[in-house]
């Protein structure tokens, strides 16, 4: 730009040329950004490929019995006399802990979202949001520690259960971990409802509760559903906290005071010792594939719900 004199601004001629590095830099930046966008797809596929590749030899071996793998409760990967790989108790463990967590987290999460979005004042809203987001910042191993030491004593004292590390403990801890996600996304969904809806409802004489119940919830239902499903995804995939809080017993639970083991905790606890390439190792990768399928289903459902919300 050194030769750009005021007079040259007015002359019609060749366009002022940008420096080469600016052009190249821009192109390069564009390529980098495109690559990071595409890489997400690449990474998901690569992860699935590698997990599946480790599991595949077991999947196609004689030892693999699909029915036993999915529906037997007998998980004996290191048995001396009769090795059995049944993941049903683990799947039920994962699902029951998640379900309990959602029963606890959804009312609290959505309630908090509604309160923050519709009822609280500006300053209170900011305080609440920061505090709730801080909940999301607590590492999961710390949650597990809270479950193991604090929550288990409370549960024994309140319920008289013989052991404090159980389904209820894991459910409460997971609920606390999913609430921030549900609140954040739920609040966004409620905020996304145009103010004209609220004004119209108010003009018709609706009370605040009627506005929430009759107008906002139906209008934001897709977004709220997405919030809940992302919370579910968080809960299904959580490992460390449930490993410490659920008691780690291969067991079909009959009450919330029974101990369970989840798919994730089982992988975390056993993969370290399973010799690389052994059937046990491959079976653990296959439980990884199973887990992947479960979370994939949850995420796809969440995604469809979000897309439904966009159409709003």
């Amino acid at each position, binding site marked *: 730009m050194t030769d750009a004199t005021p007079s040259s601004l007015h002359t019609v001629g060749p366009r002022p040329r940008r420096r080469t590095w600016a052009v190249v830099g821009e192109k390069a930046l564009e390529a980098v950004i495109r690559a990071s966008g595409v890489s997400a797809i690449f990474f998901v596929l690569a992860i699935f490929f590698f997990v599946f590749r480790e599991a595949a030899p077991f999947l196609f071996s004689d030892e693999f019995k699909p029915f036993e793998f999915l529906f037997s409760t007998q998980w004996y990967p290191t048995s001396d*006399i009769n090795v059995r790989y049944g993941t049903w108790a683990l799947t039920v463990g994962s699902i029951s802990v998640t379900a309990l967590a959602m029963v606890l987290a959804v009312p609290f999460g959505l309630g908090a979202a509604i309160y923050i979005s519709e009822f609280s004042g500006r300053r209170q809203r900011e305080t609440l*949001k920061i505090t709730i987001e801080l909940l*999301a910042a607590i*590492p999961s191993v710390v949650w597990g520690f809270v479950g193991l030491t604090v929550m288990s004593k409370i549960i024994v004292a309140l319920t008289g259960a*013989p052991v*404090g590390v159980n389904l209820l403990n894991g459910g409460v801890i997971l609920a606390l971990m999913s609430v921030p996600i549900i609140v*954040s996304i739920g609040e966004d969904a409620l*905020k996304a409802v145009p103010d004209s809806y609220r004004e119209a409802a108010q003009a018709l004489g609706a009370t605040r509760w009627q506005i929430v119940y009759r107008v906002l919830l139906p209008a934001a239902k897709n977004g709220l559903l997405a919030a809940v499903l992302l919370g579910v995804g968080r809960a299904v995939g959580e490992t460390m906290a449930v490993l410490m809080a659920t008691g780690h017993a291969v067991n079909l639970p009959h009450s919330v005071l029974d101990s369970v083991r989840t798919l994730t905790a089982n992988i975390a606890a056993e993969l370290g010792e399973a*010799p690389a390439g052994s059937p046990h190792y491959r079976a653990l990768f296959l439980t990884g594939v199973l887990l992947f399928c479960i979370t994939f289903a949850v995420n796809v459902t969440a995604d469809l719900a979000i897309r439904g919300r966009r159409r709003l």
Partner: protein
Amino acid sequence: MNRHMPRTLPTVLLAGLTAGLGTSLLLSACGGKGPEPAKTTIQVKGSDTMVNVAQAWAEEYKKVEPTVDVEVSGGGSGVGIAALERGTIDIADASRNMKPEEIEQARRNTGKEPMEFIVGFDALAVYVNKDNPLNEITLDQLAQVFAEGGTITKWAQLGTQIPGVSDDTIVRVSRQSSSGTYEFFREHVLAKKDFKLGSRDMNGSKEVVELVGTTKTAIGYSGMGYATPAVKMLRVARMAGGPAVAPTVENTLSKSYPLARSLQVYTLGEPQGAVKKYIDWTMSDAGQNILQDNGYVPIPISSRSR
């Protein structure tokens, strides 16, 4: 519609990231290596039964040999042996013997022969809560409690009644399957049969004792060095009517306690240099005194190194 989405979600993520970074910084600050390059590091991994004494050794050894850093981690005998097979550690602690297929795997992976050193003994104690009136148990009863297909599920079947509990179902506390203690118990108590499913599988020796200490109806097994005032060690009889023996140092050395076992360390090939010096030291009087202070049974004077 996404007015607020870009603000809140990243805030959540950012908060999580900050916490994560903070933790890892903190950890790296704690475990940071000294700046002087002359330090030798010995990596030790394995048995949770031995992790207490292994850490005590590592700390004491700093005073003996300040230029050698001994890094100890647990995970279970199986984890230590698996790491030795991959050649990622110098010493594997194990509360059980290496299996023939594991030795074979180590040979195949590294081309070296695993060497075994017995560094002490331990009695595998059977723990119950201190409020449990039961004092002794037979190996057969233990198998009926813990093994798949075993018939004992209530304390009444063992002829005892725990004061102040309504449900006298036995709460079984076991170990995760990578544990040497788990395998030892399976081999010597369950006669290689499998464990009944539904036991609480703890990740460490200490956790077993802790859970038994807080649960009146629990029974569990762990190294005798982990006893606390909240629990009681049962006397164990080989058979009904036989003498019930308490897990003590004398009974372990005389082998009259049925669940006594040796504790060993494994190296790949004949140990050299710093590793050899360290193992020799653990088997010397100084090392064995530390072992004894931690609640294990030392090796006889005659087989110690000077």
